[in-house]
């Protein structure tokens, strides 16, 4: 999977929601468009309703506009740790009661954390929506934590860090993020740096909770077999009763200075059995880009590295036969400057340096000559079709709107995404490549086998 900024905390629904969240796909949306409504409660809670009457089930999500990039210095991982601790009960609903109630209905639940947002969701039969809202509203402000539950959960998070973060590829990705961002907290891993996770406390979690978990910093998304009026009534009766408990100011994170020099990282590990390379560029996100720019980057990523017809695949894998695979991704959904990534796996006998030169040649070609009308049309068709395919899945739609509203986008921008993609011109794609695929704003990472340490171990 290309992107691993977002974390889910268990593996339920892996195939649909959680996996999709991990992929952090660009917030595409729907041409025919689901009939989405949006409103705000008087306490500031934003509400999105996505009707889907095909099956008698609903997806209920609460998103907080807070993520790893909002953590105090030295407390990396607290946003994610708090996400785990949110399952430890409240005064009204002690530990386990919420999860047991969901399990008794055959519901699914989980939660996830990214750099910009933290989300909680349940999926059940439609008639339980009120109960879900009561529980979720209760834990918005009623969390009770004791050391007895906090300590084992910290171990769970440390095991999660081991599980997700200890492969050579994951280690390289962390080093590259840290190098890509010279100043912005997006450079930290969402799960946190291990030495800081180890020191997180109950008090850290509660302080973070009190500061950010409040209705005026949250978005409720309900998708499925419901009407807007039902949701409005139930939301008012549950979430509507919570008083805002913290003043929320715009999220102003330390911004990137002008980047002047390409960075290079080589991570050597004895477990690397197949070398590969990655390149990250610092580029505008949907929230920071000029009009049309993020859309052009979406199209550019697809033309450069979206599958078997892409430039990188054709040139490197098929024609020049220097790579086994190659691809490109753009992570549009972010509050601040984001990442455009390329990756490649060389054929045996081809060095990473040679592969990197071949990738640079492909990029150089796009910058110099642009893309063809045919390529542009195919990419647009494909991206727009993906949005239509997504209409099939209420959980995917719920996720898109949740991501949009917590990363500086809007319901309207999600709804007109396909129009915006359709409006992209070949000139805009070329301009985006020229402006943003600038090596001075990039970090290149090589993943190689550490043969030295293997020899050491034998001696």
């Amino acid at each position, binding site marked *: 999977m290309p992107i691993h900024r977002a974390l889910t905390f*268990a593996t*339920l629904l892996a195939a649909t929601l959680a996996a999709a969240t991990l992929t952090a796909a660009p917030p595409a949306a729907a041409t*025919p468009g689901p009939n989405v409504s949006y409103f705000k409660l008087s306490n500031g809670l934003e509400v999105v309703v996505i009707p889907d009457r*095909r*099956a*008698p*089930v609903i997806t209920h999500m609460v998103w907080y506009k807070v993520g790893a990039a909002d953590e105090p210095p030295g407390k990396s991982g607290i946003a994610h740790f708090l996400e785990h601790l949110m399952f430890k009960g409240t005064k009204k609903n002690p530990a*386990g009661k919420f*999860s*047991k109630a969901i*399990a*008794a*209905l*055959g*519901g*699914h*639940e989980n939660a996830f954390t990214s750099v910009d947002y933290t989300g909680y969701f349940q*999926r059940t*039969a439609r*008639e*339980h929506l009120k109960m879900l809202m009561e529980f979720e509203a209760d834990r918005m402000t009623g969390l009770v934590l004791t050391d007895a539950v906090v300590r*084992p*959960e*910290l*171990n*769970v998070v*440390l*095991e999660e860090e*081991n*599980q997700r973060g*200890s*492969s050579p590829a994951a280690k390289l990705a962390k080093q590259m993020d840290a190098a890509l961002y010279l100043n912005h907290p997006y450079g930290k891993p969402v799960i946190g740096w291990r030495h800081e996770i180890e020191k997180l406390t109950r008090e850290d979690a509660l302080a973070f909770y009190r500061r950010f978990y409040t209705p005026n910093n949250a978005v409720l998304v309900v998708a*499925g*077999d419901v009407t807007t009026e039902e949701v409005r009534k139930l939301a008012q009766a549950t979430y509507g009763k919570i008083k805002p408990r913290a003043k929320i100011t715009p999220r102003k994170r330390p911004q990137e200075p002008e980047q002047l020099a390409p960075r290079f990282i080589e991570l050597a590990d*004895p*477990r690397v*059995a*197949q070398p590969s390379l990655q390149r990250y560029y610092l580029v505008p996100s949907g929230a920071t880009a000029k009009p049309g720019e993020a859309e052009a980057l979406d199209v550019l990523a697809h033309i450069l590295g979206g599958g*078997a*017809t892409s430039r990188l695949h*054709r040139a490197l*894998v*098929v024609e020049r*036969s220097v790579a*086994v*695979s190659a691809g490109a991704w753009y992570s549009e959904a972010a509050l601040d400057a984001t990442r455009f990534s390329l990756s490649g796996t060389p*054929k*045996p006998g081809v060095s990473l340096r040679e592969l990197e030169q071949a990738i640079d040649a492909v990029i150089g070609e796009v910058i110099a000559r642009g893309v063809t009308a045919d390529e542009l*049309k*195919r990419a647009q*068709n*494909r991206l*727009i*079709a*993906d949005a*239509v*395919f997504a*209409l*099939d*899945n209420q959980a995917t739609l719920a996720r898109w709107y949740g991501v949009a509203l917590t990363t500086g986008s809007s319901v309207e921008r999600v709804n007109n995404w396909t129009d915006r993609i359709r409006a992209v011109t070949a000139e805009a794609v070329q301009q985006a490549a020229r402006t943003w695929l600038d090596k001075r704003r990039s970090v290149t990472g090589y993943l190689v086998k550490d043969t030295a340490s293997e020899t050491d171990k034998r001696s």
Partner: protein
Amino acid sequence: MRRFFFYVVVTAAAFAAGVMLAPAAHATKIERVISPGGIEAWLVRESSVPLIAMDFAFKGGADQDPADKAGVSHLTTALLDDGAGDLDSAKFQRLLEEYAVELRFSTSRGHLRGSLRVLKERQERGFDLLRLALTAPRFETQELERTRAQVLAGLRRETTNPNQIASRTWWKTAFPGHPYGRPTNGSLDSVPQITVDDIKAYARRVLACDTLKVAVVGDIDAATLGPILDRVFGALPAKAELNPVPPATMQAIGRRIVVDLDVPQAVLALGGVGLARKDPDFMAAFVVNHILGGGSFSSRLYTEVREKRGLAYGVYSYLLPLDRAALVMAGTATNGERAAETLQIIESEMRKLAAEGPTAAELAKAKAFLKGSYPLRFDTSTKIAGQLLEIQIDDLGIDYINKRNAMIDAVTLADAKRVAKRLFSGEFLTTVVGRPKGIVGTEPGG
């Protein structure tokens, strides 16, 4: 909660005669469509999303690979959309993209599966590309070499991945000499041996009408679908030529194998003898497994391993009823320092469940969960197509969806206790990969 119904009609040669089994606001109709040429598909008409989802399967997956050429079936699935008929790989891929046709093939031990997703307005193009892929694949040398290189890169990565090592070691040890003992995607030794002729021979033997199962969900009616089935699949041979797969008897029960790898966590993989899908006690086993380690935040393993002790991020158990062997599997990834404690807890939870069975309250909760969560498997066209295909593969009958929750309800505490004993009183084969402190293998690891 509101009940959830599918009703069934049978449609022969585009003649629809429906029997509605249950009235409900959300009743969904499954039609059995028989094409003029005799190809059967299960259809659910869904017009609110402009998408056609077709899932299909042929019997015979990696279990048909030659003994020294594991990975043939897997390579074949990767090559099916890599050029067909008059279209070379590049042209074929361009058309897929231009018309946004999603065509996927995959293999498992027992089946080759495929899926088509296409926008309704482009369905003709989608069905046509699928027809070409199945009936006129080119399987050219250049494409084979490219795909082989990709597969080998993946296999090299797997050599140092603790989960993959644990799994490969488990299967190799449990089923030596049987197709189940060989990895589905092959090995660094076997994949280089595979030739175009191997691929062609596999495709010729397996892609045939008599084992084909098809499920379709979308805005398409039976009269339209019938001729499409003939067009897409009709040119395939009438009968598959499958090599018989002998029953697989699990070996090495009670053994524990430790593979050394310098990683922070130890990966544990346990497996033992389970129940066949057709076993009258299968539903009871399904419920009992849910109580031990099924997918909710309240299983015994989740509570003991994660919730109380923080030993792991995830811990699970599941039933794996294959055609020729029935298994029950469990596993986790835990801190190497505390691996022995984790393994001991998993084993003692199994023994306890075998000895005492679940409580009446646990049984009731598990049944409620399993019944209540069933509708969540049917909330998208894509998921419905997937479910209809698996029900056909398992030969459970077109009315299974309506009977399934009653079958869960029928599981008694006595059933659950009897089956818990059957599932968990025996020994398991365990593979451990990492540096597990305090776990000693019964033999040197491989």
